[in-house]
């Protein structure tokens, strides 16, 4: 059970903010559940979601100024992109590879988010490649004296890639306005953290690049919010980068093509479910008297309706024209 230590008021969060966060968390989980069902029904060839990461994702993205700050997500970040402004319809269009998918027009696998207007940068499947992009985006903003910041998300597996080290090193040298947000769920597909690194915390890496690193409980919305807010403020005020490690659970297999029972014990999988951040967030809100049964019911109904609407909308939405496949390779040919 997560123990929330921070006080919402001290962080500048209203009751309404917390309810909004909770709503995004529930929405993210419900969309994921629908995506897995559609996959198992054979209506979506592939699904990859961030069940267990939602509280960390939503609470951190809640500190972003949408459309002003740059957000560089990876494929588990449904909670991030929903918080920054993508809609359930946007995500379902991506799942079903429809023409109107704003991330890629149905070109990429699902959850490879992108949205130019919201400054959500298109991502790929190779991990950590987005980290140097975030660094370059922050460099450009700094050169022009702009006050936006960049936040880049990645998993624990990505911290083993050269691009992670090269990106953090350069950001440290130039004190760039960038926040590195690691969602450490302890697994890179099947490879556990202890085979990924010989240190206890990803955040320790920051010392090697000359800026602060913090580890927070990714199930604690206020701890994540506080750390992200502080890091983005540091970035905006020219104090340089921060590495945040949010420790989370991966409640689902890596993707719809993975079976985590092959490499995780039943006990561990069950223990993970007990650490599910969604009911914990709910319990916290109830304990603080911020969420009534009525409000909860309302949120659940609203979410169910949005998920149904998004599914119907995406299913009825057309596929891209086949010949679209050979367009937009270069800028000069339309």
């Amino acid at each position: 059970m997560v123990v929330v230590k921070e006080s919402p008021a001290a962080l500048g969060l209203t009751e309404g903010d917390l309810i909004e966060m909770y709503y995004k968390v529930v929405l993210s989980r419900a969309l994921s559940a629908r995506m897995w069902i559609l996959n198992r029904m054979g209506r979506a060839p592939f699904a990859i979601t961030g069940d267990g990461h939602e509280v960390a994702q939503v609470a951190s993205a809640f500190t972003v100024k949408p459309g002003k700050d740059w957000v560089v997500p990876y494929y588990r970040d449904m909670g991030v992109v929903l918080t920054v402004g993508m809609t359930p319809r946007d995500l379902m269009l991506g799942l079903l590879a429809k023409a109107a998918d704003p991330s890629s027009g149905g070109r990429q696998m699902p959850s490879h988010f992108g949205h130019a207007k919201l400054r959500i940068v298109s991502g790929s499947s190779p991990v950590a490649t987005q980290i140097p992009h975030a660094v370059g985006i922050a460099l450009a903003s700094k050169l022009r004296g702009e006050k936006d910041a960049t936040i880049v998300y990645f998993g624990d597996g990505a911290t083993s890639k050269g691009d992670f080290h090269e990106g953090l090193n350069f950001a440290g040298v130039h004190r760039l306005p960038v926040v590195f947000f690691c969602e450490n769920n302890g697994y890179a597909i099947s490879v556990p953290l202890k085979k990924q690194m010989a240190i206890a915390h990803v955040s320790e890496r920051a010392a090697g690049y000359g800026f602060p690193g913090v580890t927070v409980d990714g199930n604690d919305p206020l701890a994540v919010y506080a750390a992200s807010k502080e890091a983005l403020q540091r970035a905006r005020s020219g104090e340089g980068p921060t590495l945040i490690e949010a420790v989370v659970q991966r409640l689902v297999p890596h993707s719809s093509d993975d079976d985590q029972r092959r490499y995780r014990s039943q006990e561990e999988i069950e223990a993970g479910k007990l650490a599910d951040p969604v009911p914990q967030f709910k319990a916290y809100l109830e304990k603080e008297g911020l969420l009534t049964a009525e409000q909860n019911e309302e949120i659940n109904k609203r979410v169910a309706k949005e998920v149904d609407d998004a599914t119907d909308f995406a299913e009825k939405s057309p596929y891209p024209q086949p010949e679209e496949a050979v367009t937009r390779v270069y800028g000069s040919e339309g």
Partner: protein
Amino acid sequence: MATKTVIEALRDALHEEMQRDERVLVMGEDVEEGGVFRATEGFLAEFGPGRIIDTPLSESLIVGAAIGAALNGMRPVAEIQFADFIHPAMDQIVSEAARMRYRSNGAFSCPMVIRAPSGGGIHGALYHSQNVEALFAHVPGLKVVAPSTPYDAAGLLKAAIRDDDPVLFFEHKKTYRLIKGEVPEQDYVLPIGKANVVRQGKDLSILTYGLAVHQCLEAAEALAQEVSVEVVDLRTLAPLDKEAILESVRKTGKALIVHEDNLTGGIGGEVAAIIAEEAFDYLDGPVMRLAMPDVPAVPYSPPLEEYCLLNPEKIAAAIRKLAAY
């Protein structure tokens, strides 16, 4: 018009672009002190440390951060000190820069240039001599340019910087100081994707690029009494100027492709395929290729290096062989 070397023309073109457009910035290793080939000499004093940026020894970062800067409104010129060192950045170039526009359905793009000195003949051995252009010419989403003269280098570099897509710009380092030519004072741009017939001929076409253009011209001149050789400088390797290739070969009926890059999987294979598919009826001899042997890279010892690299004598022998058909 001023007479300049290739490296002077490149430096001036880059300088003019940085003066013209404040979105242009240079990042790479040793660029602040002017670069190992002096391509950015004096830039730091004029443009300041924000637009001329020494990076750590991190090629993937150089390209990856340039992609980010391009996404955020800049026109970065990323310098890879030697083309031989570009391989750590392969993922960023191929998985990211090349695919950004396509994968975002046109919502994002990477207007950026990656400059890399390439080629042998300067006692550079395995890791300062490589020709890596074919690796990138295979990748849709990238443009690949390989100029041979000061005039082309300046005009194409400006075009590359103004282009809305990622451009790999391979400069044959042996041309840097060896090749001189006239460069106009006024601003001009040469179109990417256009070849140039640098010598008119009627018996045989040579399709080539980079330093080899000059070696081919020398060979053609030496054989001028025996055979009339046309030399086409491809200039851009992706996209290839199919029309220019076909027009020349349809005229002469014979095609010899010459490149310093090794033979197998080189640009020559693609040029040969274009000719075979679209100019078959015009041929009166086999499409031939002259290239570096398939060894990993140019070795250091002078006789080994000379054995591998092109020279006018080898090219003349290939011309004679093909002309005999």
